[in-house]
Structures are given as structure tokens and as C-alpha cells.
């Protein structure tokens, strides 16, 4: 199978779905890039190049550059979705949700329920997450927890290219609003990705490592750190790594089965700790998996601070394999 990066995998998913279904449109700021300029219309393809080339293939009526106007973008995408298109709207960085969240969580997410089941909102919102590039407090956040919280939204947090493609195609074909979180530090991560279209169902976790002693549930980029720790400790401690792939719906069964086997849980989440996915998963297991537990549930998260700019501080801020190893050793010691 050909090896592709996450960036390529998402681009391919978009291209294939746009080809298949004329109702799929891409809308956002500089998703092509260059409208009204003196150069190329395909100048950006999104600030990190994920939608590059689409305007050449599908034209400006389906790859729609907008002003800087996130509320109108999200609202237009939501309104288009309930009236017959299947928009893929880009919220450049998830940090920007604050200027447009209403159209996502009060409008798109609630239509179906508020309207008694009579609205269908096949909307995908693509957005970038994550620290590690010294982009500081307003361009480095991991906010999937704020979306996961919202009934009516599905949330996807792919960790590799194979998943990214299959989950993106699923997202576009899904009849509910889906928020698709792309970690900007792993866009170049490569794995084997079939050329043809395929889907991965939501709510099905992936075991990236099998093991018997400790369950590590990790999200997005954190999956790679968890895998690294599992490999590093393989001779000493047998770690099972669970990548939920979607936080909403969440595959509770796989997590609980794993903890039933291991009796120990570490959750790794790049977000700030309060009301986080780490807390959410820990709470799930503290209820439904309590009887399996042999040790306290440990969370490895960022601290309760904004993301600092200085690389020296950001390094301390982010979860990393060493912190995960410490947590794994702590639950083994208990």
C-alpha cells in the first residue's frame, strides 16, 4: 500500500468525496487562497496546505474563499447543510472557536433535536489543534473537549493517515455535524493508506498496542507518545494503548474491556486538565470499570495554564513520553 502523510490522506479524502458528490463544498479562509490578489488562486490551500489543489480541480464555486468572518463561515456552512449541501468548513485553528461557537453548538448541533428530528445537518468542520510550534496561547490549544461536551456534535481526533482518510470520508457521508480535529504536529506523519475510498465507523477505538498490565488511553498526537512508552517499557511492563479515534461517540466498551484485562488506567490528553477528555474517560472507568481497578487512575495532561510561548516552557507544558512513563510506573507501583 502506498505510504501517505496525514495531510495527503485528508486531501485525498476531500478530493474523492468532492468528485463523488457535487454537494460537497469546501469553505473557509484561504482554503484556496488568492482571491482578489495578483497571483495564483491556489496560493495557500489552507495555511498548512491540506486543501491545496482542490480549487484547480473543482473551481471557486466549490472551494470557497471567504473573508475573515468565522461566524458567517460556520453559519453559512450550517445553513447550507440543512438546505442540501454537504459543506466541509474550515476553522483554521480550533483556538478561534470563540468568535463563532454559537453557530456550531447552539445552531448546527441542536437543529435536529430542537426541530423534532426534522432537520439533517451533514456538516464537517475541520480544525487544527495542538502545541509544539511555539505558536503561544492563542494558536496552540487543544479544545476537542469543548465540542465533545456538546450533544449533537460528533468529534474525530485521528492520530494517523490511515484513520484520517477513513474518518474524513465517514465524516463527509455522515448526516450529523462532525468536528474533525487535525493535530498540526503530525500532518507529515506517514502510514499506509489505500488509494481507494473507505470509511471507518465512528465510536470504534483502535488498539495500537496490546498489553496486559496497564491500559493507556491516548488521543491524537498523544497516541504516538503512548506507543513509544509501550515500546520502551515492553520488557518490563506490558502496556495496552487505546486510541479512541473519536471522542464523541466514545467507544466506552473497548476502554472498559481493556481495563477489565489490565486493571490499571492512564489517560493521556494534551488539553488542560479541568473537565477534559482525560477526566471524562477517568470518570467513565471510575463508575463502570470500578470493580476492575487495581490502582488509582492517572491523568497525564497539560497543566492548568495557557500555552506558553517560550520553547523551554512549552516543552514543560506538553505531555511527553517521560511523563507518561512516570504515570505508568505510578499505577504499577500501587
Amino acid at each position, binding site marked *: 500500500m502506498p505510504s501517505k502523510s496525514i495531510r495527503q490522506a485528508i486531501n485525498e479524502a476531500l478530493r474523492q468525496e468532492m468528485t463523488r458528490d457535487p454537494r460537497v463544498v469546501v469553505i473557509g479562509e484561504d482554503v484556496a487562497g488568492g482571491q482578489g490578489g495578483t497571483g495564483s488562486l491556489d496560493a495557500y490551500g489552507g495555511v498548512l496546505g491540506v486543501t491545496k489543489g482542490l480549487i484547480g480541480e473543482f473551481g471557486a464555486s466549490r472551494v470557497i474563499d471567504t473573508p475573515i468572518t468565522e461566524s458567517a463561515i460556520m453559519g453559512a456552512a450550517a*445553513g447550507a447543510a440543512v438546505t442540501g449541501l454537504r459543506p466541509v468548513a474550515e476553522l483554521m485553528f480550533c483556538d478561534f472557536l470563540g468568535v463563532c461557537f454559537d*453557530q456550531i453548538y447552539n445552531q448546527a448541533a441542536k437543529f435536529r433535536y430542537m*426541530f423534532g428530528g426534522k432537520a439533517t445537518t451533514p456538516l464537517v468542520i475541520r480544525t487544527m489543534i495542538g502545541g509544539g510550534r511555539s505558536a503561544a496561547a492563542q494558536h496552540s490549544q487543544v479544545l476537542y473537549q469543548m465540542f465533545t461536551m456538546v450533544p449533537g456534535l460528533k468529534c474525530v481526533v485521528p492520530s494517523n493517515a490511515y484513520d484520517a482518510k477513513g474518518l474524513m470520508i465517514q465524516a463527509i457521508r455522515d448526516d450529523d455535524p462532525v468536528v474533525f480535529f487535525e493535530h498540526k504536529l503530525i500532518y507529515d506523519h506517514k502510514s499506509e493508506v489505500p488509494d481507494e475510498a473507505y470509511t471507518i465507523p465512528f465510536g470504534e477505538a483502535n488498539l495500537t498496542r496490546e498489553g496486559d498490565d496497564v491500559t493507556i488511553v491516548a488521543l491524537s498526537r498523544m497516541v504516538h507518545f503512548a506507543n513509544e512508552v509501550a515500546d520502551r517499557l515492553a520488557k518490563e511492563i506490558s502496556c495496552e494503548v487505546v486510541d479512541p479515534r473519536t471522542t464523541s461517540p466514545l467507544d466506552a466498551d473497548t476502554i472498559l474491556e481493556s481495563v477489565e484485562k489490565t486493571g490499571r488506567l492512564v489517560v493521556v490528553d494534551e488539553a488542560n486538565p479541568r473537565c477534559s477528555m482525560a477526566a471524562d474517560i477517568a470518570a467513565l472507568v471510575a463508575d463502570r470499570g470500578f470493580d476492575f481497578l487495581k490502582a488509582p487512575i492517572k491523568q497525564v495532561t497539560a497543566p492548568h495554564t495557557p500555552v506558553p510561548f517560550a520553547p523551554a516552557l512549552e516543552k514543560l507544558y506538553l505531555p511527553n513520553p517521560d511523563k507518561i512513563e512516570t504515570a505508568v510506573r505510578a499505577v504499577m507501583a500501587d
Partner: protein
Amino acid sequence: MQLSRDELIRAYRDMRTIRAFEDRVQEEFSAGNIPGFVHLYAGEEASAVGVCMHLSDRDHIASTHRGHGHCIAKGCDVEAMMKELFARQGGLCGGKGGSMHIADLDRGMLGANGIVGGGPPLVCGAALTAKTLGTKDVAVAFTGDGASNQGTTFEAMNLAVVLQLPAIFVFENNRYGEGTGHDYAVGSKDIAGRARGFGLPSVKVDGTDFFAVHEAAREAVDRARGGGGPSAIEVQMQRFYGHHSGDAQLYRAKDEGKRARVDADPLASFRRRVTESGLLPDATFEQIDAEVAARIDGAVAGAKAAPPPPAEALMQDVYISY
């Protein structure tokens, strides 16, 4: 005033239906029969009807918290509406939305909205669908004078101009947003003028004059259908009731609402003009009034007889079912 006899009848019937619906909702709400909050549209009928008469079920509108009039003008079933307000089975949203989220996708009614300024961005989306699929449909955002100051509304106007969308922004200026006067809250004191600054052809019309609204809307709808892009219309009117049913209205001179019923009643002025010019006799109006009254009675009776939603409904429709 080039409406056919049938159009005149429809216009009056829709306006009268709105008025009778709202007056009755006020009664039922005061009697404790309707849960939650209701915001009544009485006095503003010419706006919803004058605009929506140009629309088909394929055209979309987004409404506000004050949405009953837009629903009726867009063709929603009044009994299903009444059931929704009463929180009963058979309600337009199965009793899950209520007055503030009443919607009917089949009629192109994208919903009342509990968020001030929530509708205009959505209308850009409906218009984008029309433009992308080449359907010639249009989309209308009804928006209040208060909502005209919300960032989402401004953004929607700009995006509509940038993408040359078949969208129409109708600003229903009923002088107040809750208790705050429009001339205080709109810095420029000119909603249509501000819209013009966004690049939208904009007019200001007297919302007690059905024919003025109808004509302004015709131009805007024709422009949008013809590919000429978005427009704005500021419709000036007064609301007869308070902000919501039960509002003490202390921000208003004591008899302001009452005087509006005399000075600014779009139904009365419609009837006067139409009878004076001999287009329809008084008898027709009386007949419509009677029919409408019976229909509203029936709707209320139907609503009162309907059961509340079943317990299962709580967990249904959060997501689509596979």
C-alpha cells in the same frame, strides 16, 4: 398596488391569521396553558406577509425569537404550531422546540432562534445552497432592530455581498430590543443606511403599509433570483405587546402599545385601502375574520386535546439514527 383579488385575500388572511394567533396565544399564555416564553408579533404582520408572499416552499427564511408570524406567512400549519407552543405531540417540532425554536423545514422555515443574530449567517448558507446548485431559490433573514447590532448579522451581510448570494436581510425595526430603543442601540440611527455601507442595495419602508413592504420585497426577491445579489430592507413598525408576553413595558410610555393598535395597525390600513378603492367589499373581510377565528379555535382545541410527547422522545433525535 397591483395585486390580484386572490393575492389580496391571501395577504389579508395571512395577516389576520397571525393577529388572531398572537392574540389567542397571549390569552392562553396568560391563562398558564403555554409553557416557557412567547414573543408576540402583533402589529408587525405586514412585514412577514409582504415578504413571504414572494416566496415558495423552496425558498428559505430564518426567523427570530419572535417567529410565529414568519411561520404563518411561510405556510406552516397553525394547528401544528399551536401544538408546538402547547408542547404537545403533533407539534411542528414534536414539542421539543417550542416557540423559540419552532421550525418547518418542509416549508423552508429554518427556525425561530433563541440567539439574537443567529439567523443571518444561516441564511447565507441557504442562499449558498441555492447558488451552488443553481436553483434560483432565495433566502431571507428576518432580523430585529436589536439584532441588527450583533456581529453575526454584520458578518452575514458582508459575506452575502462578497459571494453575491441570493439573500435578503429584512430588518424589522419595531423600535425596541427588549427595553432598549433602536435610536440608542443603532449608533448611526439608520439601519438601512448602515446596510448600504456594506454594499447592499437598501431601502426603508413603512411596515404598517403592506403594499410598501410587498413592493420593496418584490424588488429584492427579483434581484436575488436574477443573480443580482443580496439586498436589505428596513421595515418600520410597532409591536402591540411587550417584548414577551408578561412584559411590564416600563420602558415605554404607558399607552404606547395601545396607541399603536390605533395608529399603526397594518391590518386596519390594509382593509381601509382595499375597501376604499373598491377592490374587496367589507363582507369579504368579515368572512375571512370569521374563518380565521374558527381556525384558531380549532388549533387551540386540537392542541389542548393532544397528549404531551412520550418519554422516549427525550433521547431521540440527538443524532440521526442509522
